[in-house]
């Protein structure tokens, strides 16, 4: 049974549609990450689930019950805000017990819940401090603790790490992953624009773009089998190379001619005979590019810029037309003397993605 179900959910501010046709089922115990570029509506969707934004269309169910008009506090959710949103005039203990006090829980019950959460988050030494006497990471833990004490059905995280510095962000990300392991039954929804957070934390990722869902899937599904060019280029860094091509061989495997690269390449995407001659976009990730000397290559170009990162070397090929994106290859190890050199690149058939009009040929 789905713990949380969105059916054709929509949000509009007057005539402006921010979100439309959102269909999503979230199982109990999942950690779902909403990811997407800024302005894609991911935070709005989270706030609609929380009840802070009105749902203007469709239906939201939590635990089988429609909650469109249920006040936020009775939806069984708890939210961690980007800015922590701690009550500045209350100590850590008071911050964490506020919701329970409002709910009229007994003193001993509150005490027990706060102590349990403080123990999980290692906040015990700070219980009587005010938020201003805590570091950013500690404040974020208090914000998480405030959620834990309420024992909600669904945890909502709104970009919880974006106010932390880089090192602390990694540490806190791992803490959240551990927290999830300690509470396997709790459902979490996590909003971020950072694809590393999404890839490392999520059991499933929801990629949002232009007010709709671009793809839902496990991190590896999104990486290995993107449904469209948006997801293909959004996941992975540097982003996937897209080259114009034409199908010249169909069947279990497909051969594509690449006018831009002056070569051909084989893809494991199956095609029908009727696809012969179809114009496609060929997607190859920079890390899947292989340098070759043989006659069978997909792309030949002159290396314009080289970035040596130690463990890998990034090669930027010279654009053939100004409107093209530069083709990028990420080769393992150190490569010297490649600048200005003409190189031929190819990739394994398994790693070659085919799209037509932005949609993957796999999901037709």
């Amino acid at each position, binding site marked *: 049974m789905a713990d949380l179900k969105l059916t054709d959910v929509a949000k509009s501010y007057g005539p402006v549609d921010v979100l439309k046709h959102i269909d999503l089922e979230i199982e109990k115990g999942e950690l779902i990450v909403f990811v997407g570029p800024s302005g894609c509506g991911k935070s709005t969707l989270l706030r609609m689930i929380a009840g802070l934004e009105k749902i203007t269309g469709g239906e939201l169910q939590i635990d089988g019950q429609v909650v469109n008009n249920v006040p936020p*506090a009775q939806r069984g*959710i708890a*939210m961690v*805000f980007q800015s*922590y*949103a701690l*009550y500045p005039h*209350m100590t850590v203990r008071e911050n964490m017990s506020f919701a329970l006090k*409002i*709910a009229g829980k007994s003193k001993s019950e509150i005490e027990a819940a706060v102590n349990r959460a403080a123990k999980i988050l290692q906040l015990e030494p700070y219980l009587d401090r005010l938020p201003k006497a805590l570091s950013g990471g500690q404040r974020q833990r208090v914000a998480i603790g405030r959620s834990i004490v309420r024992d909600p059905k669904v945890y909502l995280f709104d970009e919880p790490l974006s106010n932390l510095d880089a090192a602390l962000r990694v540490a806190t990300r791992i803490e959240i992953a551990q927290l999830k392991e300690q509470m396997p039954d709790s459902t979490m929804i996590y909003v971020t624009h950072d694809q590393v957070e999404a890839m490392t934390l999520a059991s499933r990722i929801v990629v949002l773009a232009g007010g709709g869902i671009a793809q839902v899937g496990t991190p590896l599904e999104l990486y290995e089998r993107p449904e469209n060019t948006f997801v293909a280029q959004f996941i992975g860094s540097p982003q996937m190379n897209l080259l114009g091509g034409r199908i010249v061989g169909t069947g279990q495997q497909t051969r594509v001619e690449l006018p831009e690269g002056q070569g051909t390449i084989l893809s494991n995407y199956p095609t029908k005979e009727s696809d012969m001659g179809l114009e496609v976009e060929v997607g190859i990730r920079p890390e899947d590019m292989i340098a070759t000397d043989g006659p069978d290559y997909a792309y030949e170009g002159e290396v314009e810029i080289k970035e040596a990162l130690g463990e890998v070397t990034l090669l930027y090929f010279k654009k053939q037309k100004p409107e093209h994106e530069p083709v990028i290859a990420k080769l393992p190890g150190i490569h010297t003397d490649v600048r200005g050199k003409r190189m031929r690149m190819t990739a394994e058939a398994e790693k070659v993605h085919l799209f037509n009009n932005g949609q993957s040929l796999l999901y037709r």
Partner: protein
Amino acid sequence: MGPLMQGVLTILIGVFGCIGYFYASNIVLDRVIFPPRHDDAGRNINRANAVRPWLFLFPALFALTLYLVYPVVGSFIRSMYDRTGDTFIGFQNYQNLAGDPEFRSAVFNNLLWVLVVPAAATFLGLVIAQLTDRLKWGGIAKSLIFMPMAISFVGASLIWKFVYANDASIGMLNAVRLFFGADGPIDPLQVPFWNNFFLMVILVWIQTGFAMVILSAALRGIPEETIEAAILDGANPFQIFFKIQVPQIMGTILVVWTTITILVLKVFDIVYTMTGGNFGTQILPSYMMEYMFRDDGRATAVALVIMVLVLPVMIWNIRQARKEMR
């Protein structure tokens, strides 16, 4: 020479006198007193720089001493003399004050004013600030409530004199009484004890706008997320207001409160205009006013008493305001 020319001349002398003073005193300091020459060059530059701030502050300090410190000391000395200003009588004026039932009544009434007016104005201002923030026409409501701030105390008193008029066809209060079937008009300003509160209403009416504007700005400064977090925590609007919003702006509330308190201790116009201190409505400033031109010269003593009362509130207020700024 006409008064206009005199004014222009004063401004010119003032402005250019200042410029001339700063310019000339700087030159004297750098060239004559501590010239950066010979062996002492470095030390003299440092010494000149240490003196320079005092040079620039001097005119302001001088004016403050002349117009603030001297009057305080002068008043204190004068309060030890009788009305002719020639005979030294020690603390006789203060003893007379303590023995005067009207003075004691004025102290008691003033205490009431200090307790009621700041509390009422701050509370109303806070509630109105919160309520108008949510309304479409809140801006208009705020302007209307703020308007009395622009009316002088005497003007406001005259307006309220009509409201309180002892005639149902003029006074709104009596008209309302008549509407509910009460018999005969009354004069609210002659109702013992309660007439004090009818006078306080006027100052509350004036000051609520001030409290509202400051507190409205403070309420908007509260991070929206803390309110959303409280909504998610299940707090109702009253709990959000009193447990989340008010504590976060407590510093501002206290500053508004003390600022109005200081004002209350100085207001005399309202009582003077409405009742002239009769019918048991005397407060300290109006009491002082009454004795200013007659009797035994105790007015300066009253002024000193008022100053002593205002001082601690003032100091606390400034400290709080500084803390807010940090």
